[in-house]
Structures are given as structure tokens and as C-alpha cells.
């Protein structure tokens, strides 16, 4: 169990799932979310937009994971193509920028449901010190962008272990 599951105020700001979970409280919360989502969806006009992930403004949802030798940033960008995504690194600030365009045919047509959000976004993520800016790689697969940032040799070496002594 993740301690964060018990602390909704530090929960990730991404969309909450509608079902599942490993903790009873989490399961109850998921259940309530699901009931609420289905209620919202019955209101015409309100649509399921409230129940689905926000995309614009806040930018895409991301994960940042690291090991001793590298940092991995992944972002959910469904419906974009490689050419629509711009990744840049300025100092220690990694920026993911892009524009999600609706297909031309979609703009004229008769909509029944319209939940997906289009437009430009930008999101900047501060990276830790000691990264190797020249060796950054980015891959886009199945709507998920994964950026791999290796740490420099020095940074890996410098991580000194400090012995904790008892008095």
C-alpha cells in the first residue's frame, strides 16, 4: 500500500481511475468517483468532459522516474504525431511543447459526443543537476512520449555515501 493512497491532498493531480485499487478506502473512493462520473455523463451538454483527463492548460500528464544513472520522463500525448511534438532542454529545464490538431474532416462534421481537447500545450519539468544534456533521447510510441536523460559520469560518481554514526 502506498501511503499516498491515504492522503488525498497529496494525490497526483491526474485523472482518477473509475475502478480498481489496492486499498479499501481507495476502492470506496473509486466507486464513488464512478457513480459520480456516470451521473455527470447523463447531463446533456456537461458531457463526460468533467470525468475525463484534462489536457490543455495544465498540459499532458507526466511521470518522472529515475535510477542512479538516468532520469525517465513520460507524457501521455494521445492523438499527436512525432512531428507535432517539440522537446527542448534549456539548462535543467526540460520543456515538452506541441499542438494537438483535430483532423480537418472533424471540424465540419456533426458531433454527437465531443470530449477530446485540441490545441497547443507546453509543460516544463525541472531536472536534477548533473544530467548529460547531449545524450538525451526521446521516443514516441502508442501515444506516450518517453524522454530518457542520462546522468553524467561525474554526477554518478559524486553521489557520496555518508556514514551515519551513533553517538
Amino acid at each position, binding site marked *: 500500500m502506498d501511503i499516498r493512497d491515504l492522503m488525498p491532498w497529496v494525490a*497526483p493531480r491526474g485523472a482518477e481511475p473509475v*475502478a*480498481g485499487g489496492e486499498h479499501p478506502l481507495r476502492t470506496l473512493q473509486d466507486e464513488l468517483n464512478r457513480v459520480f462520473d456516470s451521473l455527470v455523463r447523463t447531463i446533456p451538454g456537461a458531457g463526460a468532459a468533467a470525468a475525463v483527463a484534462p489536457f490543455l492548460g495544465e498540459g499532458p500528464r507526466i511521470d518522472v522516474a*529515475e*535510477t542512479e544513472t538516468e532520469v525517465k520522463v513520460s507524457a*501521455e500525448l494521445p492523438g499527436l504525431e512525432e512531428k507535432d511534438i517539440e522537446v527542448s532542454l534549456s539548462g535543467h529545464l526540460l520543456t515538452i511543447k506541441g499542438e494537438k490538431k483535430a483532423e480537418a474532416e472533424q471540424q465540419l*462534421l456533426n458531433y*454527437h459526443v465531443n470530449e477530446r481537447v485540441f490545441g497547443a500545450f507546453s509543460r516544463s519539468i525541472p531536472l536534477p543537476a548533473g544530467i548529460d544534456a547531449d545524450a538525451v533521447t526521446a521516443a514516441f510510441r502508442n501515444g506516450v512520449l518517453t524522454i530518457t536523460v542520462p546522468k553524467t559520469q561525474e554526477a554518478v560518481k559524486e553521489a557520496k555515501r555518508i556514514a551515519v554514526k551513533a553517538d
Partner: protein
Amino acid sequence: MVDTSTSAGGAGRGAEATRNRPVYTPAADIHETEDALVLLVEMPGVRPDQVEVGLDKRVLTITGHAAARRHEGYSLAVCEYRPGDFERVFTLSDMIDEGGIEALMKDGVLRLTLPKAKAEPARTIKVKVG
């Protein structure tokens, strides 16, 4: 035309998901052309072979099993999405040609084309003299 079922996916239709992982409701667009309905469903991180589209008595079920996107061996510093499955259920009207449904998965977006059924020509039944 197409109704979103008010329950959230198959799990909401009385059955509980058997796998202990979250089930998300993916964002969808549905628009209509002259001869078809087009559904676009966002399921980031789902490979084409992980998508299941089922049709049973006009109930269309779309399921996407996302890979566990947590990076193995890495410690998470920021976590805004949890790995999980996507599920959504729609009820089709009679007008859909169920045999001609096409599904295409690209860049995390599933595109389903549901052709409208052609109106059957009116039939006249001959009455025989018995």
C-alpha cells in the same frame, strides 16, 4: 444514434473487474458523416494488439489494456497517471451495419468506423390464391 451507456464500462454493469487494477473511462469523440459514424477513443500507452472491441446485441464494448507503464527498476519522482485499463461501452442504434465496422489504432487513439446500414428496399409480398 449512439448512446453512451450511463454506467462506466463493463465493470459498472453489475460485474466487477477481475484484475486488481484501475479502470479508466477514455475520452471519446463521436461524429457523423453521410455514410458512417466515427468514434475516436483516446487510450494512451495501449498497443494495437491490446485493444479489444466487442459487439454483442448492439452493445459495443471497447477495452484497452495498457502495459504497466511504471518503469521497472526506477523510483518514481512524479506520478500523474497510474497504469490501468480503459473501458467504455456504447449502445448502437439499429442503423449500423455491424458487419462493416472497422477499427484502427494509431498514436494511442482508436478510430472506429461504423458504417450506416443501407435501407432495405421495401418488399412486397405476393399473395397467392389458395
